């Protein structure tokens, strides 16, 4: 099996990162088509019909999200979430690097569809080359008349502001992103009101992921019916999967929705490295629940992965071989969430701190009987009780690990050491 390339089909074409190269591959044709042949409402309907779901993590219907904007309330803003920070995810970075114009074109189509005259791109602070690529692409698009007043004589005015984040994972959460974009501390906002009603600067706002908008030119060019034929019943099109970990060929792979995980890891990724056995894998990124070899035939699609007990999230695939210590994995991940917790709400702020302490203790061989249950109970008090999904998500991986690998936790405790460490930590 091979990849199903839509977004990445022209990747590698000469000069794709620049306007001339991108236009050679048919770039900006979709945008022109949208401006000339389609009304904004028709575009929204088209995207609804295509079945496109947001690629940022939650998998919410893109057309549906757009249609939540209150009628007649202007200005309204489009914000592109390029704050890709989920450990294990690097697809937006790839898209921005290889074909920034594809993202810009998608953004412009979305802006036209929702009647937005000022769009923002919030890009992760660490993404410097990608920021440069975007900056360049925006300048070219502006020069070509794709951005500006009365674009190509259509009467549509649009401008784009590119903004760099300052290094906080939480700013990938849409409301925290908006707060940060406004110049405040990056902290999530109370929902409702949802951004569609009251978003950036209190105005109706759509927040879309990079990959989501990068898909739009293809839907406009080829039609929603074409798009809807790709993928599964509830997951249309393709997705980029960011594969990393103990796999022979890590990297980004564009797969049709619903293709089995096995294909991704074995056919494209070349299987587990060093001829070792697959212990577990984690779709979606650091937040998501672990899955086992028994789940290899699950389809790469929102609903199938959810049914298997995890979430597709932002499209990461972390592969873990048999030498992986799940306790250490948990410790590493939870430490990350503890570090990135904004501190706004109690369960996340205190809970990730405490969980980190407990997991570190277990991993260092100082765990106590009952620590696994303590983690589960803490997880219960964080998940669904935090202000935003950061707290919730910090508990999913460790809880799923305790579910599948409880023995490993117990072993750490009873042996007073991590069984996977070559040099065992001895406890006095």
């Amino acid at each position: 099996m091979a990849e199903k390339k839509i977004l990445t089909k022209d990747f590698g074409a000469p000069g794709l990162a620049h306007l001339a190269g991108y236009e050679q591959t048919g770039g900006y044709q979709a945008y022109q088509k949208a401006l000339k042949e389609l009304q904004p409402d028709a575009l929204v309907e088209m995207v609804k019909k295509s079945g496109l779901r947001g690629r940022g993590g939650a998998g919410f219907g893109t057309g549906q999200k757009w249609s939540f904007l209150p009628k007649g309330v202007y200005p309204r803003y489009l914000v592109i979430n390029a704050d890709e920070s989920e450990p294990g995810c690097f697809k937006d970075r790839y898209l921005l690097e290889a074909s920034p114009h594809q993202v810009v074109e998608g953004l412009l189509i979305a802006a036209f569809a929702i009647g937005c005259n000022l769009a923002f791109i919030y890009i992760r602070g660490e993404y410097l080359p990608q920021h440069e690529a975007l900056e360049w692409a925006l300048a070219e698009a502006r020069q070509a008349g794709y951005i500006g007043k009365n674009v190509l004589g259509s009467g549509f005015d649009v401008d784009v502001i590119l903004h760099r984040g300052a290094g906080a994972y939480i700013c990938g959460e849409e409301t925290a992103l908006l707060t940060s974009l406004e110049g405040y501390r990056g902290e999530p906002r109370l929902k409702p009101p949802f951004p569609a009603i009251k978003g950036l600067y209190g105005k109706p706002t759509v927040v879309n992921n990079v990959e989501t908008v990068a898909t739009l030119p293809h839907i406009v060019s080829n039609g929603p019916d074409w798009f809807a034929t790709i993928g599964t019943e509830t997951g249309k099109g393709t997705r980029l999967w960011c594969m990393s970990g103990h796999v022979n060929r890590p990297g980004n792979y564009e797969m049709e929705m619903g293709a089995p995980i096995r294909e991704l890891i074995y056919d494209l990724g070349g299987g587990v490295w060093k001829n070792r056995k697959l212990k577990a894998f984690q779709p979606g990124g650091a937040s998501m629940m672990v899955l086992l070899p028994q789940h290899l035939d699950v389809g790469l699609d929102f609903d199938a992965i959810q049914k298997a007990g995890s979430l597709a999230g932002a499209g990461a695939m972390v592969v873990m071989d048999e030498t992986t210590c799940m306790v250490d994995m948990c410790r590493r991940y939870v430490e990350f969430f503890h570090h990135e917790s904004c501190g706004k709400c109690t369960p996340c702020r205190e809970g990730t701190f405490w969980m980190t302490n407990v997991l570190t203790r277990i991993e260092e061989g100082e765990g106590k009987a009952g620590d696994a249950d303590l983690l589960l109970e803490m997880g219960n008090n964080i998940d669904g009780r935090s202000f935003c999904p950061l707290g919730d998500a910090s508990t999913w991986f460790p809880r799923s690990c305790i579910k599948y690998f409880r023995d490993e936790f117990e072993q750490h405790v009873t042996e007073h050491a991590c069984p996977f460490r070559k040099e065992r930590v001895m406890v006095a």
Partner: protein
Amino acid sequence: MAVATDQVTLQVDGVSVTVPKGTLILDAAKKLGIDIPIFCSHPKMEPVAVCRMCLIEVEKMPKLQPACAIPVAEGMVVRTLTDKVKQYQQGVLEFLLINHPLDCPICDKGGECPLQDQTFQYGPGASRYDFQKAHFDKAVPLSDKIVLDRERCILCWRCTRFTEEISGERELALIKRGVHTIIGTFNDEPAQSVYQGNWTEICPVGALTSRQYRFISRPWDLDRTPSVCPGCAMGCNIQIDSRHNKIGRFQSRENLEVDDGWLCDQGRYSFPYFQRDQEFGSPSIRRDGQLAAVSYPEAVAEAAARLQRAGSSAAGWASPGATNEELFLFQRLFRETLKSPHLDHRQQGIHETDPEDIGLPIADIERCDHVVVLGGQEVIDAAPVLHLRLHKSQRHGVAVHRVDEVKAGLAAVPAEATVVGVLATAARRADAITLQNQLVSKVKGRVRRLIVVRGPNGRGAKDLGILPHLGPGYAVLNGRAGRPRAEWPKAGIRALYIYDASPLQEFGATEAELDWLRSLDTVIVQRFKPSVLDEYAHVILPGRAFPEKDGTVTSMEGRVQRIANGIDAAHVWDDWRILQAVANAMGAGLPYRTSESIFADLAKAVPAYAAAALAQGRVLWGER
């Protein structure tokens, strides 16, 4: 319009309740007497739902919901007592306590601490947290008034939101993130706000404490007396908290019509001025140039004899920090006993007054569409809590114009304004009236003014006729007007009776007046603490401090409010008793036994005050 659509009926713990649309679940439950624990939620601030203490179950919602932030909906079914909620409450309190030092035994807040109380009521009996707690700086000076303990802080955001939403100064902010988040000021510079004391009251833990109150008392050892702030004419309601008959602190006592629950630091931290931290001497008489201690009757007799000699050439100055009852007797002493018209409570300025000065009650500022603050900061400095009301009004859409000149004030208000308010200090009353008159001809709506007078009873002093030209109730004195205080040095005054009731509103003799004071036959000083005037006094009559008195004071908006003695000073004569004794020594025959009995007569002289007596001092002057 159908009223029914504005009401929503829901169920909380099986009981139905109907509340206005938009009400939060928390408040709907409160209406039923159902207590949902909170930390971050505050009735005067926007909900933020950060502490997560108030999560409860709402039918058809899979997750627990923050009662402090979710508005009610028709048919909503709320459950606050389920096992799921109870387990979670234990969990969140366990979380809140893992990095809390639990130093309750040495914490000022212990005993009145929401964290402590709710841990007892809803929390786990013990913690399973057995690691090192995260450590932070303790006893951080945020300013000369406030000390912050960053370990006790539970990051509820109340103080930061206060500086943003209530005072608008944005002085406190969250710094760093996650478990390392702390509260602080920009660059650790000292906080400048004059509303900092409020932070300590809204803090649900012992993180923000008043430097003056640190380690002074445990809450349960405090005696609490409702009173009124002696700081200015605003009339903010306070509670005098004392221990061992010493004032520990002034706390706010919410009166939505006046202070909205807040105090300014000027008032809150004024209590050391009124502290009887030592004995301030007995009554004394000057003999051969030296002050000699005598008994009250002796001093009273001496004062009376000297006053009688001066007769109508005696002048009396009473502080606007005195009570209505005292002021009433003071003017009877002069007008009736001594037949002297030379009365005043003002310092240098000569400000006229009339009942229109209280045309705009404080709470009505919120109901204006335009408010002109003539003099800007000078008005706020005179009554700082006024700023909080103005800021609140502004947030709710009232246009507040801070201007220095009448012209600018007139220009700021558009002709279509419907309810306009003008605020000014007594010093700029004339300008305020000019502006008001000009606005009346410009705008189609009503224009009202409020004059910020000086002293907690500056309004009462005017109402009761401590003025040379007007008697009690603004009675016109036909041809019998006296001379104002500023003119006394050149008015042939022979004896001067200074009732310096409050260290905050003193007689304030100028350099030039000192020679005049020295030249007088008689200077009688009735005061609380030794003052610079003692040097010129022939008779000193020690009286009581504001927190040691019973009586009423009238705020700048004409609100007659009761003050009560939170501090027992039985060995010192009541000021009204001294005044009555002096008058009676001259044969006045005043019969009063309590300050209440004086009020009854006072209300006959100033009929507007009769209504105040009936309503226990809670109505505005002049019945509105």
